[in-house]
């Protein structure tokens, strides 16, 4: 069976990200999953094997770490030329998409982004226009280069013992034009990453101020979820931009989305409409968020949410 390259997303803190395991699961339907790791592969190999990575290509060295994206695309392009894979899967994150874009140009090859499913023949499903439409697409030139949206498929283990292969990294000077001079980690605590979380609790303008976001955070922590914010809340300075859900922020698709004090403008719906279950608390009975909520409470979130958190504690 032909190899399917899965470009691994991992972080020093969290290890292999969930979306990588989901991609390995998807890759099994297309061929033999082989992971491509940038950086230290030793710490990640066991986990990748647990989800079916038969091979791990390890590309390490300063050249891939110190420059923005371009060297990584060169490494993946080299692998595509040497192993002739059936497809390349990358995460539909900023970096995943950027590598995919460069790869597509290098290989003069089609690419499909924000994919939520791939069939055995490479036909991909994409959710478009703020979750209001679904398209099926395929690459018609070259192999499928596909970026996969986190939380699109459940990750299923299929344990194997991966063969680790070191990849010699030789990148061109043209790949070293954008140098990363500093990486600043901002504490997120123990909360899961927004796009990968099974549960997301978001606050909007109705939260009122930055301090009040503690109410949102408390519920998120009790549910083991991530915290999100609407654009209105971010613009008002209640919560940092990296947690913004919506058109100019993150797209999330969790099992449960809790919207607190969020009216549900189309801008916001664009980022959360495909969540499995949606719950909303808003004092305005006419708020559009109720049109998509499976369960809605019309009321003061500062009364409803503390009562809910007390109730959850009691049940634990």
């Amino acid at each position, binding site marked *: 069976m032909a190899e399917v390259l899965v470009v691994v997303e991992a972080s020093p803190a969290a290890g292999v990200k969930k979306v990588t395991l989901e991609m390995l699961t998807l890759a099994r339907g297309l061929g033999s999953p082989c992971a491509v790791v940038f950086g230290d592969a030793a710490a990640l190999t066991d986990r990748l094997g647990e989800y079916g990575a038969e091979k791990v290509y390890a590309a390490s060295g300063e050249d891939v770490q110190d420059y923005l994206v371009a060297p990584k695309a060169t490494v993946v392009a080299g692998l595509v030329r040497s192993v002739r894979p059936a497809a390349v899967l990358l995460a539909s994150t900023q970096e995943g998409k950027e590598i995919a874009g460069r790869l597509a140009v290098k290989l003069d090859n089609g690419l499909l982004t924000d994919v939520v499913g791939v069939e055995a023949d490479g036909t991909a499903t994409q959710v478009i226009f703020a979750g209001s439409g679904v398209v099926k697409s395929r690459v018609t030139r070259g192999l499928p280069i596909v970026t996969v949206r986190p939380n699109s498929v459940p990750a299923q283990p299929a344990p194997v013992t991966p063969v680790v292969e070191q990849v010699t990294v030789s990148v061109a000077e043209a790949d070293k034009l954008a140098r990363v001079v500093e990486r600043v*980690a901002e504490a997120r605590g123990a909360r899961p990453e927004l796009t990968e979380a099974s549960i997301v609790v978001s606050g909007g303008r109705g939260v009122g101020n930055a301090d009040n976001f503690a109410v949102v955070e408390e519920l998120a922590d009790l549910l083991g979820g991530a915290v999100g914010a609407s654009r209105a809340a971010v613009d008002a300075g209640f919560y940092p931009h990296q947690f913004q859900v919506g058109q100019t922020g993150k797209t999330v698709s969790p099992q*449960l989305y809790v919207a607190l004090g969020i009216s549900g403008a189309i801008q916001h719906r664009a980022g959360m409409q495909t969540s499995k279950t949606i719950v909303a608390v808003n004092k305005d009975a006419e708020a559009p968020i109720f049109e998509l909520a499976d369960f809605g*409470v019309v009321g003061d979130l500062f009364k409803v949410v503390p009562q809910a958190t007390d109730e959850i504690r009691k049940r634990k």
Partner: protein
Amino acid sequence: MNIVVLVKQVPDSGAERALSPGDFTVERAAAGNVINEMDEYAIEEALRVREAHGGEVTVVTMGPAAAAESIRKALSMGPDQAVHVSDEALHGSCAVATSKVLAAALGTLNPDLVLCGAESTDGRVQVMAHMLAERLGVAALTGARKLTVDGSRLTVERQTDEGYEVVTAVMPAVVSVWDTINEPRYPSFKGIMAAKKKPVRALALADLGIPADQVGFVGASSEVVEFAKRPPRSAGTKIVDEGDGGARLVAFLAAEKFV
């Protein structure tokens, strides 16, 4: 400094959007067409760089004749001139072909700095800056929330899931921006009047030396085979809090096995 801003006309994301039933391209007739929101931030940043360091700002748009309206709107914010790349053969172009055309158009302008929005509200593909950099052999600094220009050196801060990165390069370079970078100005009346007289140069495929079979549907590297509207979500239970709203909410979450 020779600054280019890439501006894309997109269907208004606040309106209902669809793909054309015939060829699955973005339906431009139904919804109102506007400047892609993040491109307005790129225009603003270009104007700020010009104000601080001098030079000229050129808007570059690839799109059908109707995109001229967005070009005038962009010019009314303050850029000096525009280039409109338009050709019947471009209809149906994929991202790979689009980057080829835009790279060729940029090649005629020799910019020091190319600014664009990080993504468009219609495709949300988020790859153009890197595709162009790959083709032009220049640096790409993407997703900027802050841009500093020091002589020929550019430094950007970009948000990541873990925090942020500081990335630096020497011009020429392509920089894509998020909407956190600035607050775009509104066109003034004077700006709107002045925009009517600003030069807009038309470029067709032949001017760029690109054969028609490398773009559009014929030259596309991917195709849409099916489009369907997703059924709208239906509203579920809505209750009014009468002192037990929190408890009833948890009862729902428990029934759904979230607690």
